[in-house]
C-alpha cells in the first residue's frame, strides 16, 4: 500500500505546451511508470504533444480519461486558478509545485477547496511532489533515489532534504511506501498531520521519517498528534538549528521570529512526543534504519 497515490492513479498535466515545465516533468513521471493520461491547455485542445493527448480543460480531460490526479507547474499568476479548476472538475488529488504564488491567492484557493470541494486534496504549492516508489511519481523527485517495497513513509517540508531523506534510506536498502514533500509555503494544502494520519492508517507503512524546518508551528502540532494518535515509530530532523533569527531563508516557511518556531523548540516538542530526533539528515537516516531493523 501507499498513501494518496498508487499504480491506479491517473494524472493529467495542467497547462501543457511543448516548452512548459509541466511537459518536462510530466514526461519524466511518465517514464517512471506513472499513468499520465493527458494534459490540458485551452488553446491546444485536440493536439498531441510528445504522445500526451491535450484537452481544452480539466473537466474535459476527466470526462475523456477518468483522470483522478492533476499536476500543476504553471507560473504563479495562473496557479491558484488552476488549482480551483482541477478541484471543480472533480480531481481528487492535486500536486502543485509552483513556487512564488502570492500568499493571498494561496489562502483564497485553500479555503475554496475546503468549503466548496472537500473531496479534493491539494499537495503544495511550492513542493517537490509525491512518489510511491514503483507505482506513481508526480512532481520533480528523481525516481532513481527511491526504493520500492516499504516499510518507511517519509514526509518533508523541504525540497532537497526530501531527496536527502530518500537517499539516506535507499542507500541502506530500506524502501519507502510513499514520500510526500508538503512544501514550505505559508498555506500548504496538505500538512504533516494529514500525512502522519495517512501513514498511521496504511498497513504497509511500519515507521515514519519526518523532515521539518524552522518557522511556524506545524512541527509542534505534529508532535502533539504523534503523542496522542500514532502507534508507529517516528524519526525526525528539523533543519535550521543554527539559523539566525528574523531572517527569511529562501522559503516563506523558513523564518523564525523571537523564540517561536525555532528548531530547538520543535526538536524538544518532538522529543517529548517520543520521536527519535536527529541532529542532521544522516543521523536521521541512521535512526530510521535502526528502528526498521528493530521491527523484526
Amino acid at each position, binding site marked *: 500500500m501507499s498513501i494518496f497515490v498508487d499504480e491506479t492513479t491517473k494524472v493529467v498535466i495542467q497547462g501543457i505546451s511543448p516548452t512548459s515545465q509541466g511537459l518536462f516533468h510530466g514526461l519524466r513521471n511518465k517514464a517512471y511508470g506513472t499513468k499520465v493520461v493527458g494534459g490540458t491547455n485551452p488553446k491546444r485542445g485536440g493536439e498531441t504533444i510528445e504522445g500526451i493527448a491535450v484537452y481544452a480543460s480539466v473537466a474535459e480531460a476527466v470526462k475523456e480519461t477518468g483522470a483522478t490526479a492533476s499536476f500543476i507547474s504553471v507560473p504563479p499568476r495562473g496557479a491558484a486558478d488552476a488549482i480551483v479548476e482541477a478541484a471543480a472538475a472533480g480531481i481528487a488529488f492535486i500536486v502543485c509545485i509552483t513556487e512564488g504564488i502570492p500568499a493571498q491567492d494561496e489562502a483564497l484557493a485553500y479555503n475554496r477547496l475546503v468549503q466548496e470541494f472537500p473531496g479534493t486534496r491539494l499537495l503544495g504549492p511550492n513542493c517537490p511532489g509525491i512518489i510511491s516508489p514503483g507505482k506513481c511519481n508526480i512532481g520533480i523527485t528523481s525516481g532513481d533515489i527511491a526504493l520500492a517495497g516499504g516499510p518507511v513513509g517519509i514526509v518533508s517540508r523541504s525540497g532537497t532534504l526530501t531527496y536527502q531523506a530518500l537517499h539516506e534510506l535507499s542507500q541502506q536498502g530500506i524502501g519507502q511506501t510513499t514520500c510526500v514533500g508538503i512544501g514550505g509555503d505559508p498555506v500548504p494544502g496538505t500538512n504533516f498531520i494529514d500525512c502522519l494520519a495517512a501513514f498511521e492508517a496504511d498497513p504497509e507503512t511500519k515507521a515514519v521519517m519526518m523532515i521539518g524546518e524552522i518557522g511556524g508551528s*506545524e512541527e509542534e502540532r505534529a508532535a502533539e498528534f504523534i503523542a496522542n494518535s500514532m502507534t508507529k515509530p517516528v524519526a525526525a530532523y528539523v533543519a535550521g538549528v543554527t539559523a539566525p533569527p528574523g531572517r527569511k531563508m529562501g522559503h516563506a516557511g523558513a523564518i523564525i521570529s523571537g523564540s517561536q518556531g525555532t528548531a530547538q523548540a520543535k526538536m524538544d516538542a518532538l522529543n517529548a512526543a517520543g520521536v527519535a530526533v536527529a541532529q542532521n539528515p544522516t543521523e536521521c537516516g541512521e535512526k530510521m534504519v535502526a528502528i526498521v531493523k528493530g521491527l523484526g
Partner: protein
Amino acid sequence: MDLYEYQGKQYFARFGIPISPGGVADTVEEALAQADAAGYPVVVKAQVKVGGRGKAGGVKLAADADEVRLHAGNILGLDIKGHVVKRLWIEHASDIAKEYYASFTLDRPHKMHLGMLSAEGGVEIEEVAVTNPDAIALLQIDPLVGLTEEAAREWVDRAALDPEARAQAATLLVRLYHCYVEGDCDLAEINPLILTPEGKVHALDAKVTLDDNATYRHPEWEEYAADDGEVDPREKVAKEKGLNYIGLAGSVGIIANGAGLAMSTLDVVTQAGGAAANFLDIGGGANADVMAAALEVINADPAVRSILVNIFGGITRVDEVAQGIIEAIGRVKLSSPVVMRLDGTNATEGRALLAAHLSDRLIVEPTMLDAARHAVALAQA
C-alpha cells in the same frame, strides 16, 4: 519586503487610512520645508528598518524651525544599530488621548486571515500578549468572506475601544483589511492607532511587510525596491547577482541547492565545530553562471577560510553542476580551498568530470558530514 514607516504610511493613504500630514526630508532644508507644510509642532522621525528608534534618539518633537534644524541635523547620519539614517519623516505632532493596536496577518495554523485589535496600544504587542492576553481581541477572517462592516463593528466593541472611537475605528479597520488583501501585505500593522482629544482616529505609525511573491502585480512597488535598507555589503552584492544569500559571522563559506539543504549544511558545519560565513541557496538551475556568481560573492568575503559546496541533484543534474564548478573556477581566482559533496541525479558522471581537476584546493568528499568536517578543518588550519 519591509517598508520604511513613511512608505507604509503612504501605502496606507492609498487605501484611505487617515495618517498625520507630513512628508520626507533628506536634508535639514527639506525638513524645514516639510515642517512648514505640516504645521508646527512637528515630530522628526528617523527612517530606518530597525526597532528602538526612539531610545536611540531618532524621534524628536520640534516646536519651531530652530528645533527642527537642531534635531534634523542630529538625526541625519545617526547610526542606529548599524543603520545610518539618510531620510527623515516630518509630520504634524498629534495630541494623543488613547493609543490602540491593530494588525492583519496570516493565521498559519488556521489558514485564514487574523486580525488583532487592542485598546492597549503604543507598547510592544508581544509584551501585551504575554502579560495581558485578554487585552487583545483576535478575529479570524475567512478570505472568501472578508471583513464586513458589521464584523468590524462587533470587533471594536469586543476590543472595548473608547465609545467615541468605535465607528471611525471600524471603518479604518475595513480599509486596513483592504490594504492587507489587495495590497498583498504579509503584515499590515498600526501601533499606535490613536484617538485624539478632538475625537479623531488615525494611524500614528505604520509597519508594512509586502509579499515579495506578489511583486509582479504591483508595479508601484518598484520605488520601494530601490532602497531596501540593506546594510551588509556582502548581501548587497549577492542581491545584485540575484542570489539568495544571508551573511553570517563564521569562516566556512556555504553553497547549497535548496533552502532546506542549505540550512542543514549550516547545521552540520556547526556540529563539526565550525561556523558558517553565510547562507546561500543557488536553487534549482545551478549552471556555471550561477555557480560563478556564488563563488565570487563568497570569495569577496575576507572572513572566509574554506568553501563548502553541498549539492543534491534532483532535477538539477550533478554533471551540469560539476561543469559549472569547473567553468566557475576558471573564471574566479579563489583564495580559499573548496570542499564538495555531490549526490543525486548523475552524481557519478559529475564526480568523473571533476576528477581531473581535483587537488588540495578542490576536494570531493563522499558524504555531507565528511565534507563539513573537512571544510571546518581547512577553515581552522
